[in-house]
Every structure is written in structure tokens, then in C-alpha cells.
């Protein structure tokens, strides 16, 4: 109950403005000229000193993107994005000479991450200031500014570095896997990302290795009018295991900012990737002004037999979320999991869910989605489960529950359940309800305020998913949930 | 007569029965007792012919015929009756429809003509009356919404109608209060006959106060660890199974 107590205290402590990561770091940046054309694509590629094949890959993506239309099927509504009115590249000036050792990183940047609660100083972590060891890749606008514990990871054979660096240090891996899960032409935003992606993390776990610590990437959008287009690629070779965490924040700004990321995961035989996200982009103010447009393509490919990919997400931020972390279950007896908490308040619009594509025999998947809508927000679960002809013995269980708080929000469920194999067994259940008056009364009768009671009940509602998160993340997520629901009661 | 000879069975690569031997003579009531997870239910399922069990070695003979080659239907028609620990609920199938289908299947297998409806109704009513199974239960879908006791009575009713050679009672006492237990036991006792044997699987001695066994077998670690008379059950009630689980280890 300690965590609940903490949640309650937290709710009490909150002032009018709940978003605590809304500060701006005053740092000099170098930007590409505004707008998007082939020169900008070449500029980004040149900045990263990329080999020709990658420049061409980007240009090819850009040309295809020009022929595509922005998708309209999601239940989200926003003014047309002017793609020529954005900066596609921004990097702190101090990073001009490329990545440095931790000691040389601009102190202003270190202070930023400190303020965000992200540990970048290995010594402190080692000295026990932080309870458990987590390696961090910190991405600031378009570049990675620091990656910790690389040496220690290297001893285990684990490669963890910015993708811009991997292009040079491990070109064969990047060339083999980049775009192999999310093809360049997959969708409008993924294609855009392929053309202009800036930085993100690259992870390779060699055969049989259990990654000795949690890996994490922390994304920060700082610069005004700047889009962030990160690209993450994680490969777990045969029999390996890695747990990866992703966090994100952005300053509080009046304008909307675009975040269009691509994450690709590959697991080989008997390998497992556990990917957890606590997404806390700036959601805009109560009137819907500002906030991040989060259009993200995340997909995992269970290539090997008995391999497993598990997505856990806590979505509290963004003005608009358009995100469907998916699993392609190709290997025999491979398994996909999706655990999600999506909270929307204010004028937020969430359209999120997953796809479980069963291709191989005896593949299994599990989806647990908890949506909470408050304020004037709209929260949609959109999910697809399909069994193809050869997916004999495929199994899926889906549970998606929605909770409504207040009279002006919407909760929607749009599942697509497609079976083309007679031996597949799919079970889907969904409910929508409000917080039970009886439960609220019970809690208030025991002395809790309505707000405390609500936080308590919501925490119970999402418990199944919180349990999937690594310990520290779970505590963080729980606090975040209470903060996100601030002002939703009464 | 039921003879189980050197039976080795595994499920998903895990060994459950490990060279089990057991004989139940005609007219005999044999009890099998043992701690949980020792393979008692597996034995009953394997005798009744449930799939998903891998019989690696051994034989199960009913009157000298190896029934392991038969499917569940053929075994039922050969006279094997399993009273399930958890009788299945079958929504949409009226209990009467089900009973008629089962009796007709048996009649056909024996080369007899199907029962006429009035005869069938009479037979069911008689048997149901003795077990306190009401008309309302017979009208409802099979086992749907039945209480634990009602389900068990329904199992015994089926046994009474199908008149098997061997009746296997798998933890029939579980979930029953003392009154229900007495009704069920009376039902079983009424069916005792020279040419019919019973295998009563139970964890507790309690059931054996009502269904008096001729023989008591103690099962542990996938085989029969000890065999004795009714006094063995009383002994177990006092001392527990620890000696056997230790002994067999």
C-alpha cells in the first residue's frame, strides 16, 4: 500500500499545472533549414557521415513518401500538418564533434537529464545512489548525447549504442536488419521516418547472452518547431534475453510538435525481448493547446521458433497518440504479448492498440489493454488478431477494458479478429464502465477523499498491466497515472 | 474383471503412472486412496480412454480384452463407466436428450433396438426418483447450473441407466455435504452386483464409511504402494500419507 499512499500524496501535492517535465533547456542548437526536400535528407545523412547506401535508402523512402497520403482511419482529429513548416534536424552545438565520453558531455545537458531524473553519471550509480543498474542512451532532439555502461555491456558482447554510430561500427548488422521488420513503405509516418530519421538506439544481444542489465533510451524533444524521428533497432540473437525501457518527455509549448518514430525488434530462436515504455510526452494544456503528435510504428518480428516479444506501455502523454506495437509471430510456438495502460485527459486523443499476426504453428498471444478516459478526451483501443492458413494451433486471449471518468469523454473499442485456420482459438472480451459508485462509497466511507478513492480504484483497474513493468518503472508509472488524472474528479 | 498390468503413462513428457498393477475382480469394490497429484485421476482417464495421455507401456484388460486399443466410445459400450470428478456442463443439450442418446448408443452397440420413448421415460423416472433427481433437473441443459451435489447425482443416475461392468468413481465425494454423500453412496450401493465391479478413487476415508470397499489400495508416485482390506483406510485416516510418499521416494 506504500505506493498507493505515495500516489495519493502526489495527487495532493500537485499544483495547477501537472506536467512536471515542461521546462526548456537553454542550449545553443544547430538546425537544418526548415522544410523537407531531398537536400534536407542529404543534409541529415551528411551530418551523420553516412555511407552512400543509407543516403540512397533515405532518398528512396522520401520519394515514396511524396506519393503517399496521410492516413485518416484512426479516430483522431487534428489540423493538417504542414510538413514544410518543421525542422527535421536539431542538435546541441556542443555535440558538433560527435559523441564524446561522459566526462565531456555539456554540463547543461547533464543537468537536464538530472532534472528529468535520468541517471547519466555511472559513478553515482555505481556508488549506490541509484538502486539498480540501468544503461541509458539519452537522445536529445536529433542526436544521442550519451550512452552509459557501454564498456561493461561490451564485456558481455552486448552492443548498445546510438544507431548513427552502429551504422559505422556494425554496418553489416544495420544493413541486414534495418527496415526488415517495418518496410520503408509500411505506412505514411514510417516512410517519413525512413527518410529523415535522426537518432535512436541500436541493440544487439549475441546468442545465448542474457543482457546483464536493463537497457533504456530516454527521448527528449527540446527545440521549438522540431520533429523527432527516432529509429530504434533491437536484435536478440538465438537464446538471448533483454529487457529494454523507453521514456520520453518534452517541454511545454503552445505549438504541436511531431514525433514519428520507428522501432523494430527481431528475436531469433528461443530469444526474448521485453520492451517497456512509459510515454509522457507533453499532452497539451486543458484546452488542447500544444502537445506532441505521436505517430509511432513499433513492430516486433518473432523470427525464431519459441521466441517471444512482450510490449508493455503506459501512455499518459501526447496530444495525439497513434501507436500499435505489434508482433509478427513467424517462428513456431513463438509468443507475443501486449500490455497497455492508456490514459487520456484534457483534450487528448488516443488511438492505440496492437496487432498479433499469427503465421507460425502453435503461436500464442495475449493482449491486456486498459483504457481510462477523463476530461474531454477520446480513447480508442484498436487491435487486430489474425491467424493465417498455416497458423495451426494459434491461440489468442484478449481482454480490453475501458473506464470513463466524467461526462465529456469517449471510450471506444475496435477489435479486428480474423481466423483463417480451423484449429485457431481466439477469445476476446471487452467491457466499458465507470468507476463503481459502490466502490467509491466504500472507500470514502473508510475516510478517503473522492480523489484518493479514484486513484486507488484506478490503480486496481490497471494492476494487471503494472505488474508487467520492471519494478522502478512500475512505481514511476503509478505516480504518473495519478498525475494524469489530476482534476478529473468532481 | 479389470486388470491393469505394468501401466506406464506420461503427459507432455512428464511421467505420471510408473508401472502400475491393479486387479479388480467381478463384484469387488476396490478403493484407491492416495495423496493429491499422485496420478489417481490420470488412471481413471486412461482407463476411460481420454486422449492426450501417452501410454508408453502396459495393458488394461476388461474381461481379458485389452481396451487400450479402443476409443472412448467403444470402451463405454464395452462397459466402462467413469463418474467424473468435474462433470462437464453442456449448454444447449437437454439432459433427457443426452440420456436418450447415451442409452440408444449402448443399445445399438449391443445389437439391440432403440428404446421406445415411453419405456425410456419410465426407466429414467424410476432411476431419477431413487436419487432424488427432480423433473426440473431433467429438463435443464446437462449439468448447466447444477450444484456440485446435483452434478454428482446426475453421474450416478447415468451409471444406473447404463449398467456398466466397471464403475469408476473419481473423487465422487468431493464437494458433497453429508446428506448428498449419503444419497450418492446409496445409489452406488444399490448397483453393487456379482458381475459388476467398482473402482472408488478418493482422497478421504469418509466416502468409504458409506461405500464399504472389499479392497483398499494406496497409490503413491504413480504406482500401487500398498494393498489391504478396509482397515487400511482407517489406518491412513490416522497416520496420513506421509509414510507412503516418503517410502516411495
Amino acid at each position, binding site marked *: 500500500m506504500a505506493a498507493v499512499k505515495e500516489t495519493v500524496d502526489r495527487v495532493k501535492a500537485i499544483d495547477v499545472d501537472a506536467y512536471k517535465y515542461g521546462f526548456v533547456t537553454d542550449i545553443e542548437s544547430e538546425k537544418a533549414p526548415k522544410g523537407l526536400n531531398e537536400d534536407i535528407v542529404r543534409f541529415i545523412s551528411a551530418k551523420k557521415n553516412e555511407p552512400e547506401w543509407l543516403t540512397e535508402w533515405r532518398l528512396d523512402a522520401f520519394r515514396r513518401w511524396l506519393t503517399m497520403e496521410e492516413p485518416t482511419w484512426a479516430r483522431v482529429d487534428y489540423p493538417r500538418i504542414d510538413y514544410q513548416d518543421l525542422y527535421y534536424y536539431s542538435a546541441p552545438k556542443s555535440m558538433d564533434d560527435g559523441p564524446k565520453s561522459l566526462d565531456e558531455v555539456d554540463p547543461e545537458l547533464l543537468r537536464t537529464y538530472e532534472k528529468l531524473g535520468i541517471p547519466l553519471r555511472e559513478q553515482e550509480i555505481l556508488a549506490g545512489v541509484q538502486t539498480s543498474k540501468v544503461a541509458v542512451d539519452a537522445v536529445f532532439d536529433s542526436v544521442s548525447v550519451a550512452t552509459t555502461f557501454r564498456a561493461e555491456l561490451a564485456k558481455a558482447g552486448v552492443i548498445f549504442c546510438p544507431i548513427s554510430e552502429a551504422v559505422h561500427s556494425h554496418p553489416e548488422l544495420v544493413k541486414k536488419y534495418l527496415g526488415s521488420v517495418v518496410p520503408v513503405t509500411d505506412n505514411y509516418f514510417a516512410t517519413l521516418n525512413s527518410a529523415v530519421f535522426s537518432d535512436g538506439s541500436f541493440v544487439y544481444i549475441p546468442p545465448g547472452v542474457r543482457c546483464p542489465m536493463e537497457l533504456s533510451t530516454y527521448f527528449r524533444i527540446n527545440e521549438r518547431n522540431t520533429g523527432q524521428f527516432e529509429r530504434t533497432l533491437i536484435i536478440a540473437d538465438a537464446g538471448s534475453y533483454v529487457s529494454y525501457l523507453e521514456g520520453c518527455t518534452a517541454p511545454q509549448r503552445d505549438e504541436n510538435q511531431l514525433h514519428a518514430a520507428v522501432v523494430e525488434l527481431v528475436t531469433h530462436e528461443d530469444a526474448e525481448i521485453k520492451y517497456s515504455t512509459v510515454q509522457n510526452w507533453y499532452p497539451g494544456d486543458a484546452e488542447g493547446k500544444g502537445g506532441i503528435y505521436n505517430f509511432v510504428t513499433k513492430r516486433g518480428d518473432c523470427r525464431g521458433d519459441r521466441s517471444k516479444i512482450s510490449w508493455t506501455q503506459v501512455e499518459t502523454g501526447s496530444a495525439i497518440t497513434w501507436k500499435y506495437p505489434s508482433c509478427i509471430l513467424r517462428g513456431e510456438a513463438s509468443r507475443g504479448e501486449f500490455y497497455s495502460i492508456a490514459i487520456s485527459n484534457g483534450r487528448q486523443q488516443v488511438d492505440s492498440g496492437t496487432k498479433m499476426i499469427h503465421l507460425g504453428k502453435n503461436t500464442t498471444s495475449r493482449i491486456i489493454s486498459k483504457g481510462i478516459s477523463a476530461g474531454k478526451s477520446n480513447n480508442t483501443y484498436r487491435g487486430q488478431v489474425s491467424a493465417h492458413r498455416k497458423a495451426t494451433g494459434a491461440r489468442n486471449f484478449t481482454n480490453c477494458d475501458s473506464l470513463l471518468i466524467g461526462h465529456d*469523454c469517449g471510450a471506444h473499442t475496435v477489435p479486428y479478429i480474423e481466423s483463417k485456420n480451423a484449429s485457431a482459438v*481466439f477469445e476476446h472480451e471487452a467491457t466499458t464502465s465507470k468507476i463503481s459508485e459502490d466502490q467509491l462509497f466504500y472507500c470514502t466511507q473508510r475516510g478517503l477523499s473522492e480523489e484518493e478513492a479514484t486513484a486507488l480504484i484506478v490503480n486496481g483497474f490497471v494492476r494487471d498491466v503494472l505488474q508487467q513493468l520492471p519494478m522502478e518503472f512500475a512505481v514511476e508509472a503509478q505516480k504518473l497515472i495519478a498525475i494524469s488524472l489530476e482534476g478529473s474528479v468532481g | 474383471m479389470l486388470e491393469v498390468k505394468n501401466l506406464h503413462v506420461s503427459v507432455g513428457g512428464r511421467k505420471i503412472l510408473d508401472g502400475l498393477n491393479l486387479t479388480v475382480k467381478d463384484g469387488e469394490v476396490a478403493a484407491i486412496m492416495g495423496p493429491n497429484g499422485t496420478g489417481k485421476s490420470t488412471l481413471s482417464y486412461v482407463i476411460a480412454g*481420454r486422449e492426450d495421455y501417452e501410454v508408453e507401456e502396459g495393458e488394461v484388460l476388461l474381461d481379458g480384452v485389452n481396451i487400450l486399443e479402443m476409443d472412448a466410445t467403444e470402451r463405454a459400450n464395452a462397459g466402462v463407466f*467413469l463418474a467424473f470428478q468435474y462433470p462437464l456442463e453442456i449448454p444447449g443439450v437437454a439432459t433427457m436428450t443426452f440420456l436418450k442418446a447415451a442409452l440408444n448408443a449402448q443399445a445399438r452397440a449391443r445389437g439391440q433396438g432403440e428404446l421406445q420413448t415411453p419405456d425410456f421415460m419410465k426407466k429414467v423416472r424410476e432411476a431419477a426418483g431413487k436419487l432424488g433427481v427432480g423433473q426440473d433437473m431433467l429438463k435443464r441443459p446437462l449439468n448447466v447450473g447444477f450444484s456440485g451435489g446435483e452434478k454428482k447425482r446426475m453421474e450416478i443416475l447415468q451409471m444406473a441407466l447404463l449398467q456398466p461392468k466397471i464403475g469408476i468413481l473419481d473423487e465422487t465425494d468431493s464437494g458433497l455435504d453429508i446428506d448428498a454423500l449419503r444419497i450418492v453412496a446409496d445409489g452406488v450401493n444399490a448397483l453393487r452386483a456379482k458381475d459388476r465391479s467398482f473402482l472408488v478413487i478418493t482422497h478421504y476415508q469418509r466416502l468409504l464409511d458409506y461405500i464399504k470397499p472389499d479392497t483398499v489400495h494406496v497409490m503413491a508416485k504413480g504406482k500401487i504402494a500398498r494393498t489391504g482390506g478396509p482397515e487400511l483406510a482407517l489406518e491412513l485416516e490416522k497416520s496420513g500419507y506421509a509414510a507412503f510418499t516418503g517410502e516411495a521416494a
Partner: protein
Amino acid sequence: MNKPVLQRQRTEAEVALIERFDQGDRRLVGASALRADAMRRFAEAGLPNRRVEAWHYTDLRGVMRSAALVRAPETATLPVARECLTKPVAQTGAFRFVIFNGAYNEELSSSGPLPAGVTVTSLAAALAAGDADVLGALKADGPGTGDAIVALNTALMQDGIVIRVMPGAKVERPLAILNLMSGGFAQAAFLRSILLVGAGASVSLDETTAVCMPDATQANEALTVVVGDGARVDYAAQVAEQGEGAVAVHGLFVTMGANARFNGFCLVPVAGLVRRQIFARLEGEHSTISLGGLSLLRGKEHADTTLVVDHAVPNCVSREFFRHILDHESTGVFQGKVVVRQHAQKTDGGMKSQALVLGEDASMNNKPELEIFADDVVCGHGATVGQLDANQIFYLQARGLSRGEAESLLLEAFANEALELVADESIRARYAAQAADWLAHRSGQ
């Protein structure tokens, strides 16, 4: 799922349908403004296809390569209809209205006095007379207005029956509509019937669609039901017979007043492609709608049930329960959407779709949707796709039933549980017999 490309070539079928309207069929009497507007909407959208979200699993544009012709209601084919009416599926045992080859046929319909409180007219006559109630009802297609195939029906509707039940009338015997085509060649029909039920009245309607000589027919039928305050309507429908390559599209539009009850069911045991669309709108408080269905499919049959239940007011209850048994290479589709508007508090919505996939190459697509804007609601849905329960089969085998018998018994039970939703006993018995036939045919293979 992207936006359809606007500049596309019209298919042969689309061109034929638009031309038929433009060239002015003299049989399309009345409602000219309504028809013209509907045809404009159809021409814009074209035949529904995979890119239209609501038609994702049923690509009508791909299936309807050409548009079949409508047939004049000539007397020469009457013997075919008479013969057809002797078939078991036509034995409705109720007061019967027959629409034959696109026109209401009084001669084939029941004679004698109508039940008290019931008046009827043909749709053609009502439209010719500019009947205000009928025109009003046609405008109230609700969420169905956006659908191209509904628009096509409105544009080209030939005839149908308009039944009015006076306020307070309790109609004891079911009324039946039989939509018949003589068939024998690829023939089309566009039918629209209307049932207007006055406040406090109750009625049971039994609608059957059949083709006498099954062929690649194209039927586009619709029924508009307006349920008055405190009224009760029981409705059962089936597509009883059509040939391979046939397409039957049926739209059901239900508008409900307060304290009303609508109980609908549909049986689909039939060849070809069947798409049933239900658009229901609860406009008065304390009303209950229950929709159910059973589709028994084999071969390459394709059956799609797509429904939208719109809770526009508080305190209503909706229930949907649909089952499929899919053999061979058949395809089943269930798309159900429950919409709860912002002020529709205390809505109680429950939806269930269950499918048994028996055929190796059969497929099932489920899309149960919730769209909820009110917070004080209890809504849920469940969807399962799977096979018969192995434990239940074992239990039955352990009682001496053969595997085949055990399967048949369980399938029959699965079907019968759905059929329990048919309110009228005689109709339920007729459907149960058909389902039993279907299952017997299956186990006899």
C-alpha cells in the same frame, strides 16, 4: 484502410446500375427526389469494397461483376411461384404477403380479412400516392444513409409491402412477408417493405427470402420498422434459398420509441453471399432491443452480419447474440457496433459473437465495436472463434456416443441455443428443423 482513391474507373456493374436509373425505368414510381438523391450517393461511392471500412470483409465490387436484370412480373411465371409456395420454407403458417419478381402479388398472398388493426398497401401504391408516413419512414434510415448499398435500394426500390399496425392493436398470428424470385437465370430485385407499429401495439413479423429456381440472383432488400412507444415487435428473417453465385443484401432499419421492445433474429443457411445489415436507433427511453442470428455455412458460402445499434437516449438495453458454424471453405463475418451517445446514461449493452470453425479452410472475421460517449454505462462484448470443446466430446464418448454423434449433438446444441432467441414458437420450430437438416446433411457426408 486508406482513403479510397477518388478518380477510379466504374465497374461494369456500377455503370449498368447507374444507367438503369438514368434511363428512367417507368416502374420506379414516386419518391423521385429521394431516389435521385440516393442514386447520386451511390454513384459517388460505387459498390462497397474492401476499402470501405464497413465492407472490409465483404467485397461486393469484386463479387458483383455484372448487374443482373430485374424481371417484369409476368403471369407466365406464376406457376413457378405456386410450386415454390408449397416448399417447407414457405410454410409460414401466418397471414402472408408475397412479393414476387419485384412486385406485390395479391393473388399469391393470403386471402380473407386482415387481422384487426392491420392495414396494408403495396409500396408502389404508397409512393405513387405520395404517402407521407411512408416517405417519412424512408428518410429515417439513420446510420444506414451512409451506406452505398442502402442508397442503391432507395434509388431502385421496385415494390414491397407497407404494413400499418394501429395503436393498441395486438396482432395474435404472425404476419409473413415472402420475397420470391422465380429465378432460373441471373435476376435482380430491389425490394423495400415498411412496418409501422403504433403505440402500445404488438406484432410478430416473419420474413423469408427465396428463389424458386436457385441461380446467381441479386437481391437487394430492406425493411424499415418504426416501433411506437410501448409497442412490441418480434421479427424473424431468413434467406432460405438461393443459388451459387447469388448475392443477397438485406437492410433492416429499426427506430424505436420509449418503453418499446424489438426482438429480431436471422437464420442464414444458404448458398452464395449474404450480407445482412442492421441499423437500429433507440430514440425513446426504457426500450430494449435484442438481435440474434445463426449462420450455417458450407462450401464457399459467405455470410456477413453487420449491425449498428445507436443508443441516442438514456436507460435502454441492447443485446446482440450471433453464432456461426463454418464448414469447408466458408467465410463468416460479424461486425457489431454499439454506439452510446453522450447523454445516453444508464445504457446497458451486451454483445456476443461465437463461431465454431469446422472446415480446414473456413474463416471467421469478428469486429465487435464499442463507441461510447457516456460514462454511466455498462457495456461489453465477447467474441470467440474456436472448435468444439474436446472435454465435452470426451464426456459424451465416455457415455457411449460415437465421436460423430457427440459432435452432432454439440453442434445442434450450439445452434439451438441461438434459436432460443426466436420469440415465436412456430417460427422457432421451423428454423430448428432447417438447422437439423443442415447438420444431418453435414454428418451424412
